[in-house]
């Protein structure tokens, strides 16, 4: 509650703040962004992105300040501090890194950075940067570690009239989360990513690959159940719940913008050899038209998640204790998070100042019955995984 109050006052002071003239000197440059987002979900049977059937402004509202400090012509230190209103997001330093740019072609960074898996992953909090209020969850919630500590290198070059940027990054991630009501500690010892973008005029392509291995998620209920299985002598079943493995993510994207219209699409695929991390294929296609300063969009998004087949070695029908354990294992597998959801969103954006935009958006959600489908706190079994999310937002940069 105290955090919420602090945040609200931060946002209010931020509103005042962006009227002030820009603060820039040779040494330090400050910028900021923020958003106030309100939403309402038209069902009392579940939540989606934290929203339920009461209007809430404290799920996605946030404010952030960025400072870029030049040490020399080639060295810069950057920090981005964020205060977030959502329960599942922590406030604090999202970026903190040293950047070295020896020439126009190369850039190296070291420190804490956002992971650039998808087109908007590293600016997911900067609502001003994209047309939606809520970026398609099917794609943008597919990796829940949003930052890494490590190094990255970027190389730019022109091939004929195409501008190409190649980036490689390497790092680790260790953080605590509240994820869908559970407290989780996630420790990834190896994150390797490659990313290529190509821009030809206003046409852009993007491809990325990400591999995370040696990860460990400390989810108490899974650890405890695994220990019980192990103590009962079913080591294979116990091992199947371990997070020790590798997950790989693939992304392809294309976008085109013009004065009158735009379209953009992204497709992602996640493959893991860990039972508790499902395979996911997701995509979205967004098209929009600019009517006299009002940008519209229609976005169709889908995801298909599948849990890998688990082998249950615990016999049934031997004795009641083993039956309980065996059915318990089956039940655990059945209850793994699986998110298959199709959605259509329709939204408007109006930039009434060059750095302030107002948005409205309606999302029609159609989840796979029997799965979580990105819904949380599902209160009735009969919930058909269909709902509408209504949102309004104010986005600004400074």
């Amino acid at each position, binding site marked *: 509650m105290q955090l919420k109050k602090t945040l609200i006052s931060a946002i209010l002071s931020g509103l005042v703040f962006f009227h002030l003239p820009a603060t820039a000197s040779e040494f330090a440059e400050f910028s900021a962004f923020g958003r106030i987002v309100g939403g309402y979900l038209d069902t009392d049977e579940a939540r989606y992105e934290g929203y339920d059937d009461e209007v809430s402004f404290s799920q996605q509202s946030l404010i952030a300040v960025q400072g870029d400090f030049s040490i020399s012509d080639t060295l810069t230190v950057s920090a981005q501090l964020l205060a977030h209103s959502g329960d599942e997001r922590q406030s604090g330093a999202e970026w903190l890194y040293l950047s070295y740019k020896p020439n126009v072609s190369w850039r190296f960074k070291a420190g804490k950075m956002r992971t650039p898996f998808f087109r908007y992953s590293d600016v997911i909090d900067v609502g*001003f940067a*994209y047309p939606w209020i809520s970026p398609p969850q099917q794609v943008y919630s597919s990796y829940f570690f949003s930052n890494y500590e490590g190094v990255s290198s970027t190389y730019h070059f022109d091939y004929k009239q195409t*501008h190409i940027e190649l980036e490689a990054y390497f790092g680790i991630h260790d953080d605590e989360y509240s994820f869908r009501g559970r407290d989780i500690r996630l420790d990834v010892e190896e994150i390797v990513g490659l990313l290529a973008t190509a821009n030809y005029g206003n046409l852009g392509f993007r491809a990325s690959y990400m591999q995370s291995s040696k990860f460990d998620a400390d989810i108490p209920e899974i650890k405890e159940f695994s220990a019980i299985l192990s103590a009962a002598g079913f080591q294979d079943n116990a091992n199947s719940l371990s997070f020790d493995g590798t997950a790989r993510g693939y992304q392809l994207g294309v976008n085109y913008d*013009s*004065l009158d219209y735009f379209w953009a699409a992204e497709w992602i695929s996640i493959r893991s050899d860990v039972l508790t991390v499902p395979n996911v294929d997701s995509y979205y296609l967004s098209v929009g038209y600019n009517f006299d*300063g009002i940008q519209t969009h229609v976005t169709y998004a889908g995801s298909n998640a599948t849990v890998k087949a688990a082998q249950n070695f615990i016999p049934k029908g031997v004795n009641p204790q083993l039956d309980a354990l065996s059915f318990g294992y089956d039940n655990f597998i059945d209850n793994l998070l699986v998110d298959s959801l199709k959605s259509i969103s329709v939204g408007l954006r109006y930039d009434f100042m*060059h750095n302030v*935009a107002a948005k409205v958006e309606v999302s029609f959600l159609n989840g796979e019955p029997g799965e979580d489908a990105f819904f949380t706190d599902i209160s009735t079994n009969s919930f058909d995984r269909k709902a509408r999310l209504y949102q309004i937002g104010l986005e600004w940069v400074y």
Partner: protein
Amino acid sequence: MKSVTLLFLFSIICFNTNADDSTLIIVANTKSAPIDIEKRQVRDIFMGNNSSIPLLPVALSPKSPVRFLFNTKIVGLTESRIQSYWAQMRFSGRNKPPQEFDSVDSLLAYVQNNEGTITYLPSTMDIPDGLTVIYSTE
């Protein structure tokens, strides 16, 4: 958007004494200016998407009608989309927008005093010695 653009161009033609106001020239302060620069290269320089032409772009502020012409004729994007793009670049630590000036006079003065810079100006302006016109929208 198209109707706004047309209206804007129309108003420029009607209310300005000189119809050439809608023509933009790209001016550089360089002794080795490329002589056959293309429109797409101009766009790429100002959008931070060019690694081969070593010129530093400087621009006008978003309220400027000359900037509006540049967005329309060269970049091919709305101001809203350009601002979104720079927000993405800035807050992901990738790039920063060109330095901006409120008037063409202060812009011109800056370009004159800084070698290696490039900017856009109305074709009706007198271009001082030392600056080279490297592209015109006409």
